[in-house]
């Protein structure tokens, strides 16, 4: 049986750190801070009833942010419900992320090459295969990357997508954030496979484990997978080992199922603290500079939330506008009925 080493860049005996450009390291840090700040803020907003149910990424910022930084803007993203961070990095304005949390907007916007976040688990993985295939057929040197969780590996669509991708040698990256839990179900109840990366063996595709709290390792792993894909060497399944420090969503209470000790261990591995320490040690960003970044993020998010709340309420009939290029007669009649109803 192949062994499945965990790729690290920031660890003691790791290397490759010079392959990540310094400005990228700093930008990843800034984006991680922004995401953390937003998630914390939004949990509060949710408690106040100002946004709906919300899935924070707290603890997963390294894999969430650094992975997306390794992509080109021409690449396609197929995100899950927890991937507003990656979407932001890929080009969705954070203003839009906030409006989406308020139920007022789509999860994507503008010209960004991304699908709306997939709510049904893992069912978007086949889309990534199709996007990758479409890009290749149209002669574009781009990849498609799907985000999903450890729980997602149990769904049939995970299997069908990886198998398709293997057969087609499609330029796809399957980016699995193994955050230890699928809501209340621990990975060991999710599968008897000792690792998720080795599931790649079932499809003749490359499998790669990476320390998901090591932003630089995540960045490098995705970069490498991307290069392999573009070189025609086929898809990669990346298992990023990380941890969800917060609740599954604001509707969830992890104390019901998750041992506090486990959480304590992972809190010590906070990817944001880790990258901050690294940047300080390397002289790339002093503690004071980091504090300033955090302060700016807070201020920016506060302003953006206020702005989002100040946007006018949704136009009730707007929901009729998008399903079809031309709404059929019955739908138009329904729209008119609603118009009358609301006066």
């Amino acid at each position, binding site marked *: 049986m192949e062994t499945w080493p965990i790729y690290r860049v920031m660890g003691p005996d790791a290397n490759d750190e010079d392959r990540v450009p310094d400005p990228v390291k700093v930008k990843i840090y800034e984006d991680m801070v922004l995401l953390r700040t937003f998630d914390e803020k939004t949990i509060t907003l949710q408690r106040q009833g100002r946004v709906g149910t919300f899935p924070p990424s707290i603890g997963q910022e390294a894999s969430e942010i650094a992975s997306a930084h390794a992509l080109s803007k021409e690449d396609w993203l197929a995100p899950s419900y927890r991937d507003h961070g990656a979407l932001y990095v890929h080009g969705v304005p954070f203003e839009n992320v906030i409006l989406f949390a308020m139920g007022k907007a789509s999860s994507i916007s503008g010209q960004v090459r991304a699908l709306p976040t997939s709510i*049904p688990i893992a069912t978007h993985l086949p889309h990534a295969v199709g996007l990758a295939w479409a890009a290749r057929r149209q002669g574009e040197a781009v990849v498609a990357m799907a985000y999903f969780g450890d729980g997602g590996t149990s769904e*049939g669509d995970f299997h069908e997508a990886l198998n398709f991708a293997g057969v087609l040698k499609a330029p796809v990256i399957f980016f699995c954030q193994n955050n230890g839990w699928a*809501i209340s179900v621990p990975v060991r109840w999710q599968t008897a496979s000792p690792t998720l990366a080795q599931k790649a063996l079932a499809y003749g595709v490359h499998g790669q484990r990476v320390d998901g709290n090591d932003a630089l390792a995540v960045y490098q792993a995705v970069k490498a997978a991307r290069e392999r894909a573009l070189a025609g060497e086929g898809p990669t399944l990346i298992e990023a080992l990380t941890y969800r420090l917060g609740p599954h969503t604001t509707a969830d209470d992890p104390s019901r199922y998750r041992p506090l000790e486990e959480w304590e261990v992972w809190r010590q591995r906070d990817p944001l603290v880790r990258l901050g320490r690294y940047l300080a040690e390397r002289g790339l960003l002093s503690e004071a500079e980091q504090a300033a970044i955090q302060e700016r993020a807070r201020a920016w998010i506060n302003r953006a939330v206020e702005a989002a709340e100040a946007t006018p*309420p949704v136009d009730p009939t707007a*929901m009729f506008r998008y399903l079809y290029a031309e709404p059929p007669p019955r739908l138009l009649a329904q729209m008119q009925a609603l118009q009358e*109803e609301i006066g």
Partner: protein
Amino acid sequence: MAEINMVTAINQALAELLASDPRVVLLGEDIGVNGGVFRVTEGLYERFGRDRVMDTPLAESGILGAAIGMAVGGLRPIAEIQFMGFLYPGLDQLISHAGRIRHRSLGALSVPMVVRIPYGGGIRAPEQHADSAEAYLVHTPGLKVVVPSTPYDAKGLLYAALAQDSPVAFLEPIRLYRLGRMEVPEGPYQVPIGPSRVAREGRDLSLFAWGAMVPLALACAEEIAREDGAEVEVVDLRTLAPVDVEGIGRSVRKTGRAVVVHEAPMTGGVGAEVVATINETAFWWLKAPVARVTGFDLPYPPYAWEEFYLPGSKRLLKALRETLRE
């Protein structure tokens, strides 16, 4: 008797069933340690253990398929699908197998399983967490489909569902989970599968509803009585499949007018079946076209639009008044 809400009523029924029948097993995502995302299975894992209250991998087809095997093999599985919008990856198991094994084995095997499915909107849930997909199930031969609208019916229908020789989809209106309390007896009792329930008698119009639309229907009926002096009969269908042909016909033959209300999109919804059934059983009594008051022919929208999408009292009252007027 204690006054309890629907979550507690279902929980109580599950606990009693687990305690009294060793063939009963529960399976689903997050139903064990966590007690279910709506707390419907709270405390059952602790009491009955992991072999009876099974946290499964995240795979709906696997859950329903395993439940089918368990049912054929002699157990009485109660599977949970976390939200109705996540039934679709497992729909094939219900259409191709659960509903057919009895038929295809010419009665040699049967599939006595229950699938609990929280469904419907109105709670500001994230996208795709508010679907009402009962029409797919109702059109699937071999499945029975029930939808309680009260704690009492929830418990009684669950007992009845587990006593069937057929697979039963047990739809739980999320919006009603904690909305009201009523007296619910401890211990077993069945609410029969098949007959609808007249939730409010009336002579002027039959209003057909199920799930979370029943309280809305009742409220509108009261308002019509108060404001318009007409008496609306509210029929809680309760069982959607097999459709209560006789109950639907009887009510409309009495009133001569009908409205049907549901959350799902109009086109091809169960409302169409109700209209067709009325057409077949009460055509000559009809004094006006039957009105359908439904969700729009759109995917359920993001929650800021929810109040406009779902049928509310304005939309329903308008239809009732128009139908009464014709």
